[in-house]
């Protein structure tokens, strides 16, 4: 009974064959699960980035402003539309409650996307391909990205950031 104390010697009770088989199968599955994460870093192309730096929110804010000034090609509502050259360092700034700027990228070109926030935490979720990364104030998270299809992508904020959180949407245009 699971509610009664056990008399000494219980360790010697042999494990039944069926339970041994189950545990062995489960253990093999666990080992496979353990191996697959590092293995995917070797053979896969869908891994979280390990490149990140410490940066003061004011500095990130300034860098984003400079980036916008340098490559601005137009406006959409209150947002600057920015078209950086292939291979450039590009910036995406989260703040309450917007993603700046609107990025215009070229398909099959590689960019270094710097992601951060200048106030509270935000979450970058790219719709409809559903890729999610965290924007943490004080950290520059560098994601090396290569858009592989053209179209308009939305950036949904998926980390609660205040009462207007659900209105925090951004845009990436891939041509």
């Amino acid at each position, binding site marked *: 009974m699971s509610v009664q104390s056990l008399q*000494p010697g219980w*360790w*010697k009770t042999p494990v039944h064959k069926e339970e041994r088989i189950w545990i062995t199968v489960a253990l093999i599955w666990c080992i496979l699960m353990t191996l697959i994460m590092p293995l995917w870093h070797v053979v896969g192309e869908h891994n979280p980035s390990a490149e990140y*730096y*410490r940066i003061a929110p004011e500095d990130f804010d300034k*860098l984003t402003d400079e980036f916008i000034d340098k490559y601005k090609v137009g406006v959409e509502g209150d947002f600057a539309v920015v078209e950086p050259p292939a291979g450039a360092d590009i910036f995406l700034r989260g703040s309450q409650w917007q993603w700046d700027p609107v990025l215009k990228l070229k398909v099959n070109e590689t960019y270094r996307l710097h992601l951060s926030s200048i106030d509270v935490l935000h979450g970058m979720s790219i719709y409809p391909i559903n890729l999610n990364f965290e924007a943490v104030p004080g950290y520059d998270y560098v994601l090396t990205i290569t858009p592989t299809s053209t179209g308009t992508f939305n950036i949904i904020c998926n980390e609660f950031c205040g009462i207007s959180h659900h209105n925090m949407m951004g845009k990436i245009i891939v041509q």
Partner: protein
Amino acid sequence: MAQENDSSGEPISKWEKFYDNIFLLFILGMGIPFTLYTIWGVYEIFSTPLSPLVN
């Protein structure tokens, strides 16, 4: 931990003693995740390099 007047007279298995030693399990249960998750994590966070974009 050990039952002194064990009827069979056989020594109690080391594993039984280990599993009965809640205090030792407590030390290990705190120590292992604290080391692997918390302390290692704090080290990782504080060893984040400064951004090369800021001079």
